[in-house]
């Protein structure tokens, strides 16, 4: 099977997964709580007020009609072309389009996730390789220890400690927001401040946004690196023991060629898959990181809305999180197929 047909297959297979995911979200959000409107008002509203809210949000129709409308809104091309985002309904709190709110919050999450992933991968793979190369030495035990402890640290605790040290005591770095409030954010191109400011050649804004990004992405990246260290180490140990690595050594190849060209090249494939799976954990961590650092992303949005019991907004945000993860796993699988010649026939 060729690479292209593999990609097509993989994309086609995503459709039922997506449908299932969307239905599950609907099920959890609409069926479990009983009446979201009643929950929203926490019994503090008159029946008339609740009824008008239901009508305004289309919650007075039968469940399956709501379901069709919910799915229909997501694929309504006309709406997407007009607004630039899919129809996710209206917020119970502000009556604004949920899609629009999410669309403006999403880039912040994307930027945080992107930099954290880089930090986690660099730390994780580097330490993982070193650890596996020096198997059973003191260095190996030390790195493993660091990895294990990192796994056990609540992400917001690390964030708070960073804030306490670098923000409150040392006053080196900002403890919240995407950019110094005294500085105007760069004009929106991609919505990622660091990239936008670079595209506009504004180094000052680039460094300002990088400064704000540093603590949150370090927090998230370090926590995630614990898992990456362990994954890399385990896979490297397994690969280093394979015959072709011994055979490469027996041919007198350089140490670095054997470690990177043979062991890591092959160990990287399962690592890549697991990185894809860890992405879901990363997003979960992003919610807590965003909350800790008042980072105006999707995670912050969802937590804000919980306080208002704004179920349509929560539902929208959950859907977008799900779509994001699905997309990433699609990309990871395609990348895997591209890197593994056994699939690329």
């Amino acid at each position, binding site marked *: 099977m060729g690479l292209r047909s593999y990609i097509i297959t993989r994309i086609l297979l995503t459709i039922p997964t997506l449908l299932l995911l969307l239905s599950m979200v609907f099920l959890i959000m609409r069926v479990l709580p009983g009446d979201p409107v009643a929950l929203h008002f926490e019994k503090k509203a008159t029946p008339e007020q609740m009824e008008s809210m239901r009508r305004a949000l289309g919650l007075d129709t039968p469940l399956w009609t709501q379901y069709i409308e919910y799915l229909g809104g997501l694929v309504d091309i006309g709406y997407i072309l007009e607004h630039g985002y899919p129809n996710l309904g209206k917020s119970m709190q502000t009556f604004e389009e949920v899609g629009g709110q999410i669309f403006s919050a999403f880039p912040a999450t994307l930027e945080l996730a992107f930099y954290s992933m880089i930090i986690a991968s660099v730390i994780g793979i580097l330490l993982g390789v070193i650890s596996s190369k020096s*198997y059973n030495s003191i260095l190996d035990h030390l790195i493993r220890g660091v990895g294990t402890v990192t796994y056990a640290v609540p992400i917001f605790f690390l964030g708070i400690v960073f804030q306490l040290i670098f923000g409150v005591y040392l006053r080196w770095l900002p403890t919240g927001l995407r950019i110094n409030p005294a500085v105007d954010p760069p004009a929106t191109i991609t919505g990622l401040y660091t990239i936008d400011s670079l595209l506009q050649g504004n180094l000052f804004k680039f460094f300002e946004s990088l400064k704000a990004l540093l603590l949150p992405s370090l927090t998230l990246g370090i926590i995630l690196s614990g898992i990456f260290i362990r994954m890399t180490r385990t896979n490297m140990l397994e690969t280093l023991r394979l015959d*072709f690595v011994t*055979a490469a*050594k*027996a041919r*007198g190849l350089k*140490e670095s*060629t054997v470690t990177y060209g*043979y062991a890591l090249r092959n160990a990287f494939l399962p690592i890549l898959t697991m990185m894809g799976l860890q992405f879901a954990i990363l997003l979960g961590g992003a919610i807590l990181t965003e909350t800790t650092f008042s980072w105006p992303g999707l995670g912050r949005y969802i937590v804000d809305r919980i306080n208002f019991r704004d179920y349509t907004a929560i539902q929208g945000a959950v859907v977008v999180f799900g779509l994001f993860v699905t997309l990433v796993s699609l990309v990871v699988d395609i990348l895997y197929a591209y890197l593994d*010649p056994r699939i690329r026939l």
Partner: protein
Amino acid sequence: MPLLEIGSLTVDYPTSRGTIRAVEDVSFSLKKGETLGLAGESGSGKSTLGLSIIRLVPYPGVIVKGHIRIDETDIVKLREHEMRSIRGRKAAYIFQDPMTSLNPVKRIGAHFIELIRTHEPNTGKEEAFERTKTVVENLGILSERINDYPHQFSGGMRQRIMIGLAIALNPDLVIADEPTTALDVIVQAKILDLLESLRKVYGMALILISHDLSIILERCDKIIIMYAGHMLEYVTSIEMHRNPKHPYTQGLLQSIPNIELSDQKLVAIPGSPPDMLNPPKGCRFWPRCSYAKKICRVKEPPLIKVGRNHFVRCFLYGKKGVHVERNRKS
């Protein structure tokens, strides 16, 4: 001057449950162009012995005693980077399982080019490629398959490629560790024929490691019988066939079926191979030996010469043996 000279080599594997002495006090030498067979059952130390010649004994194994001289250089004392220039260039190794011995994400040709350019850095890419083509064609593989990946080849083909990688730099010594155990008999015969013809063309010495005594007898000039880390017998193959001395060797020869004989009676060696964490004292083989005497249980027999090119580690032979024999009679 021998190409390879090993003296009282001892290799240990320290484990959490105790130290396994996988190879003990092994000495032999090999001349240019000779073929030597290392035969033994699983756990006999034959692979460890083979791997110590290129100093790649797997973790946590260590060479604790003895010397291994290749062209008079004792490789036990070499630094790691000096050792690297010996591996692949002076001594090459062929592994048991061809399915897993090649890097799955690297093209076949790249394996060769990388090997050539590592050991001969002055070789240009073009030249390395041309040399690869010649080697691959000599293996009976079409040169247009150079750019294929390992998974596109059958097991037999991959073992040919492994042989090609072993001989590409024209080493003086090739060690083939169970090179055909994972393959079917017809492919096995072809691979061994290829190895033999290439060996003759390039004039290399070959160490063939196998549990299959038939292959060793068929393909090698000299044979070492290994058991529980000890060399029990060291002899030419013809002499071993005509006149095996050690009770273990005799037992092995009686336990393998021969397709050319009818009404053969196989005789098994009683008992089973020893636990290497607690090997028997004295001769390693005594618990399974029907000739075992008192001395065999307490004293390790030395390797003694019993004929031209014939050494055996057993109290039944030599002066001590005679002595024991007499004791028994009196």
